């Protein structure tokens, strides 16, 4: 394993230390209990009195997610888990506290059983402290369950658009219910799919714990290597784009005349130039269907350590979502304009 590490068991803590040092203009590390010495990452000016606090959290290894989306007009705080493992309930609770400006907390996170349990327990504890927490659970990954079981689907890169819209809504002074409704609309309007080209290796494990045979690709792979819908021979960028569009577009379904935001994210180790090649093909296919791209993002937005591959995320936008997606934002992973 050719990696940059000290003790693999400390990688998350060391990463956080470096992250907080480097980005002190955007975030701060808030440590409020002896039991969670890692603390949480909060926006430098959080909590903001009177503003709904937007919170997220999840396992590490998805840089810039999750802490990279804390900042101005994005999330106010994020709980940090071990690599590919949900943060503790305590960490979520501390993130709620760090983000609480008295107007309630919108916890916007992804649909993984560990996160569900820990957010549930954190919410219970928060209630005892008088905090009001409501949640939106991202489930944009089309490949992870059939459409009639959408509630089982995982959250993937679509979460970024949910944070962007929810964060902007909160920044504009939206009430807790409004922020929740907007974030829910954002994720309801969003579909994603991923293609994996290589497995990833957890530092503490030292070897890939699943396999993608060279010459094949895994369509519908999850961010932790969860098996996809199909393993097939490696295809050209144009063919991959077609597969992704054919999975994502009919599921919503996005139709001619719809305006959409398109996000193509690398899974970590795929050279960014290839993401643009893929995006170029996706764009052609969407244009051919009369779907109009309102904005697009290409880059390593939601990764899986050193996995190769990419995800496609599409969100349909209406006037409200357009205003929110257009708003400026300053987080480590997402800066606009």
């Amino acid at each position, binding site marked *: 394993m050719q990696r940059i590490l000290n003790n693999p068991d400390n990688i998350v803590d060391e990463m956080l230390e470096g992250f907080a040092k480097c980005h002190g203009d955007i975030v701060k590390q808030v440590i409020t209990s002896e039991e*969670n010495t890692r603390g949480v990452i909060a926006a430098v000016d959080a909590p903001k009195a009177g503003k709904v606090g937007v919170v997220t959290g999840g396992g590490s290894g998805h840089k810039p997610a999750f802490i990279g989306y804390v900042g101005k007009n994005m999330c106010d705080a994020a709980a940090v888990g071990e690599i590919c493992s949900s943060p503790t309930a305590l960490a979520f609770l501390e993130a709620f506290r760090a983000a609480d400006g008295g107007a309630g907390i919108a916890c916007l996170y992804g649909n993984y059983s560990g996160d569900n349990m820990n957010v549930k327990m954190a919410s219970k504890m928060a209630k005892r402290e008088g905090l009001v927490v409501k949640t939106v659970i991202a489930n944009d990954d089309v490949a992870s369950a059939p459409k009639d079981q959408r509630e089982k689907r995982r959250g993937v890169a679509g979460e970024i658009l949910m944070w962007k819209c929810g964060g902007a809504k909160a920044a504009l002074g939206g009430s807790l219910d409004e922020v929740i409704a907007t974030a829910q609309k954002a994720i309801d309007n969003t579909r994603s799919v991923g293609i994996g080209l290589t497995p990833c290796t957890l530092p503490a494990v030292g070897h890939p714990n699943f396999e993608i045979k060279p010459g094949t690709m895994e369509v519908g792979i999850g961010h932790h290597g969860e098996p996809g819908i199909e393993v097939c021979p490696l295809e050209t960028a144009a063919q991959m784009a077609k597969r992704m569009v054919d999975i994502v577009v009919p599921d919503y379904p996005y139709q001619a005349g719809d305006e959409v935001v398109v996000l193509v994210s690398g899974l970590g180790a795929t050279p960014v130039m290839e993401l643009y090649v893929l995006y170029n093909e996706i764009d052609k296919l969407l244009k051919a269907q009369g779907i109009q791209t309102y904005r697009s993002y290409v880059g390593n937005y939601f990764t899986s350590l050193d996995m190769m591959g990419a995800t496609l995320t599409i969100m349909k936008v209406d006037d409200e979502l357009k205003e929110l997606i257009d708003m400026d934002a300053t987080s480590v992973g997402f800066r606009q304009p």
Partner: protein
Amino acid sequence: MAVVKNENGRDILLSMVKAVQDNKQYLGDVDGLIGDGDHGMNMNKGFTLYGKQLGDEKTTFTNGLFELGKVLLNKIGGSMGPIYGTVFMEMADQGDEVEEIDLQLFINMMEAGLEGLYDIVDARPGDKTLVDTLFPALEALKAAHTQGRDFPDALDDMVAAARQGKDSTKDLVAKYGRSARLGERSRGVLDAGATSCFIILEAMAGGMQKTME
């Protein structure tokens, strides 16, 4: 009728800690087959942290369970923190401050643990999770009680049922957790959580029996 003196918790808890530590590699390997291979690491980290926290101190069994649960909940993320954290803390709540734990109280504790678990997970028997170990273990305790068996024998019955339950997960298809995504491909392999749950119950029972000798 034999009872567990609550004040003798230390040895019971330490035998649980040791069992998890001894099986770190094994649990990782089991999880590696259809999960992400970190179950041994997760469990070992939590139980070892608790062991360190306990240090040379004495503890009642229920207090120890509560503290162990809190360590898991506060220090171990993922699914295991809330799952085992809830089970142990709910068990502890039932037996709080008592001097002696008899079979009936232990059944109540186990029942509370399972109920607490049902509160946060949707998994039920047959879904290839630790519920497949925990549920039959509780049923065996109840049956032993009905049959009027002594506490140590009831614990033997519990361990046997837990083992059977754990082994039963081999032929099941996972419905929750990471392996659920494998569908039919998850059949033929033990569930990691069911395996660790058996190991913990076996160690707990052994520890309890020893204090009753």
